[in-house]
């Protein structure tokens, strides 16, 4: 019995490696995705482009503007002469926001009073605009602080100093790359599994397998183990790349990481085998995998937080293994999550695996023909 399963496992691994198509799928897309996602998936707002309409021209105004020019977050500053030019700059997306210093700005400030500063944001880039506004607020607050001190006023309580835990510099890479360990591993494992049965059906070898003394559950194990191994290898590669190339720290327990990955992979493989059982051609298997992957990643918290979703949708995502692996990866990389915490995310994945794997086995038997 063991010998049979072993023969099957060896055959699977050889087939996946020696088939040019699946070798391609295993190597090229993940590499491209790793590069693209890591660098493109950023919510950092750098090089803020800003238009400045200085209707004032006074000293105070110029001092304030100098702060903006000196700030690292702000890139190009475009000086405009009038409201129309400002509008054009904003409309044409040449700048993300516009600053307008009204005529009496310096007069009021130097007179010890209060002056307003108009900040106009481009709502078409709502997220970026809000963050840029935050930077602007910080600069203004610092300026206010100095002015108050200079005026000898009761000190304005300074800007809040906030500390960021786990990812002190709010590096996007530290958030995205651990997530990719889960996401890319999933893509690879899913595609390998989805293709495996479909390929055999197309080649005609599936029939051959069914005629041998192999039992259905043995066939299932024989297909699960290789995908598991491949998934773990993929995960390890990204894990190493994360630390060595991207410089993301890993402070959690490696043992827990692999335990979590195994549970995750089992749940994903179950889904993959399900898709494979339903497909008669490799083409269908790939499309099926795609149709699972896109919603799964979208609703996992990878690109946007789960907490921002409507409550009913948040509950639904509990059935999404990627949601759980993301929490686990962030926790193990950046927070050193303890075992009890890890378990809280692992058991849902085990439940999913317990449903999908036997479900796939049942589907196999029904869809033999």
């Amino acid at each position, binding site marked *: 019995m063991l*010998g*049979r399963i*072993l*023969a*099957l496992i*060896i*055959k699977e691994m*050889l*087939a996946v490696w*020696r*088939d040019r198509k699946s070798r391609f799928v295993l190597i090229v897309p993940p590499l491209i995705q790793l590069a693209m996602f890591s660098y493109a998936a950023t919510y950092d707002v750098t090089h803020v482009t800003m238009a400045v309409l200085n209707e004032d021209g006074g000293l105070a105004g110029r001092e304030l503007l100098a702060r903006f020019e000196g700030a690292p977050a702000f890139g190009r500053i475009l000086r405009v002469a009038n409201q129309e030019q400002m509008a054009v700059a904003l409309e044409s997306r040449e700048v993300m926001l516009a600053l307008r210093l009204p005529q009496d700005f310096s007069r009021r400030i130097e007179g010890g009073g209060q002056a307003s500063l108009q900040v106009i944001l481009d709502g078409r880039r709502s997220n970026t605009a809000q963050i840029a506004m935050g930077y602007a607020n910080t600069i203004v607050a610092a300026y206010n602080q100095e002015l108050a001190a200079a005026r000898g006023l009761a000190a304005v309580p300074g800007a809040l100093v906030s500390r960021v835990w786990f990812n002190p510099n709010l590096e996007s890479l530290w958030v995205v790359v651990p997530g990719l360990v889960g996401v890319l591993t999933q893509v690879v494992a899913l595609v390998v599994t989805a293709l495996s049965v479909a390929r055999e059906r197309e*080649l*005609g*070898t599936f*029939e*051959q*397998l*069914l*005629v*041998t*003394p*192999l*039992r259905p559950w043995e066939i299932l194990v024989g297909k699960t183990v290789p995908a598991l191994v491949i998934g773990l290898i993929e995960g390890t590669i990204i894990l190493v790349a994360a630390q060595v190339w991207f410089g993301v720290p890993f402070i959690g327990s490696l043992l827990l990481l692999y335990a979590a990955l195994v549970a995750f992979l089992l749940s994903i493989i179950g889904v993959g085998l399900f898709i494979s059982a339903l497909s008669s051609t490799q083409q269908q298997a790939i499309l099926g995998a795609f149709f699972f992957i896109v919603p799964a990643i979208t609703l996992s918290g990878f690109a946007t937080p789960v907490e921002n979703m409507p409550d009913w949708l948040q509950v639904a995502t509990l059935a999404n293994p990627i949601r759980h692996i993301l929490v686990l990866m962030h926790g193990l990389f950046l927070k050193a999550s303890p075992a009890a915490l890890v378990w809280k995310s692992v058991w849902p994945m085990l439940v999913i695996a317990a449903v999908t794997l036997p479900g796939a086995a049942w589907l196999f038997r029904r869809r*033999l*023909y």
Partner: protein
Amino acid sequence: MEPLATIAGVGKRFGGAVVLDGISATIAAGRVTGLVGADGAGKTTLVRLLAGLLTPEDGAIIVCGHDSVTATDGLHAAIGYMPQRFGLYEDLSVAENLSLYADLRGLAPAAHGETFARLLGFSGLAGFESRLAGKLSGGMKQKLGLACALIATPRLLLLDEPSVGVDPVSRRELWRMVHGLAEEGVGVVWSTAYLDEAERCHSVLLLDQGKLLYDGDPALLTRRFQGRAFVVRGMADKRAVQAAARARPDVADALIQGAGVRLVMVEGAPPPVVAELTTSAGATVEPIAPRFEDAFVAMLDHRHAAIPSLPSWGRHGGNGTVVEAKGLTRRFGDFVAVDRVDFSVAAGEIFGLLGPNGAGKSTTFRMLCGLLPPSSGEARTAGIDLAKAAPEARQRLGYMSQKFSLYSDLSVRQNLDFFAGVYGLGGAKRRDTIARMIEVFGLEHLTGQNAGGLPLGFKQRLALAAAIMHGPDILFLDEPTSGVDPLVRREFWSHINGMAAEGVSVLVTTHFLDEAEYCDRIGIVYRGRMIAIGAPDAIKEQVRSAAMPDPSLEDAFVALVERADWTEGAKP
């Protein structure tokens, strides 16, 4: 008369492999020119070159005055082309397919109605205009493909293996249609692997491994073998006689035909003497007319090496029924694929299931192997109902599926290793068995090569090796010789015969009617029903009449099918 097409010194290479080498020939109008050769001989490539779909590396092809490289527009307007998969749009109806090709070929709209009516009548598809092409039977698809190729009355008709897998009745109709066209002046190139079709062409181009071996009237070639063909009848063990005869140096070819053995002597050899061939009293040797196949085999046989025999597993059959089907039925929705089929197979017997594609042979097979549960009735193999029994019972089965089901990305050795492991062969036993298989099937130089890249003949051998490695008692072979050249087929059957002699029961499905002759008993399956069952000679006997005093198996098939249709009143 001016030839319709000229092929001058054409050579074609794919990557490093030479597919065609120095081919020169002409195609005449008003004749059917057969393109004959085994799989991989270069037939399809030559047809595609004639259609202007490929360009030759050497030489040139001129079709109706148009060069195939520079004047493809004119060429395409002059030809009709039917590729191997018919070129039909499965989601479109018969009428829509015809309409499309009519428009693509610039047939004037005014002429559409009349042309369609003519073609539909000609191809027997009148009344099926709105049926989706994907829902037609194999024979009907073929005829529709032909109709589409004929839409603009081409001068040259190129048909790439138009009759593969089609039932003999449709095949004859197709043949009749095409010959009629030739009589009207159309030039036809008909590529085929069926040697009996080649025999009936006006002229044949015989290709082997890219070279042209013969160009001319097939009858002339056959006549060269006059006086070299004989048949031996009346012996007790035809298999032993055949095997012995084949091994003799003066015998070019030895085949089982029904209850007798057909011999073709080497050129210049004296006629065979009965006593040398068999010890059975009452055995006779008679000269018979040669066939095209004899010529073909003789021209192709480059390897005269002795075929090593398979290891003996020390089995000796046992008696009694080994495989049994009782009232076996299988339905897919409304469609009845297999309808109350009954038969049984004894130990050491070779049983053939014959019939065209879609008749229900493979489905019956699958039920017997336990791959498919029957809708009703019973299938017992080795006394066990495999649909219900434990998988371990399958240890006694060997199975070779239609597509050879090898892992194309694994090497020969890796494939063998896998099947050995799956059937529980381990350690020394595994090593020894694999070594023996490699030796017997001549795979020594190929052990590291990917199974997918093997020539078809070797794929077949590997598949057979994988199926018998674990010493099964019952062997199921699903269309094991499709596409393979006659020589490899003969070798294959010698292995099968050897196994049968050991007591293994062999069930074979095939649509090659001549292979039916090699079986002990055959069952003819048509539209899911078993319409005849018995020894090949007995079946021929069923249709012997004054009009047909010496029916071939194909004649028998056609007659039985017509009888079945008539009793049912069914339309083809």
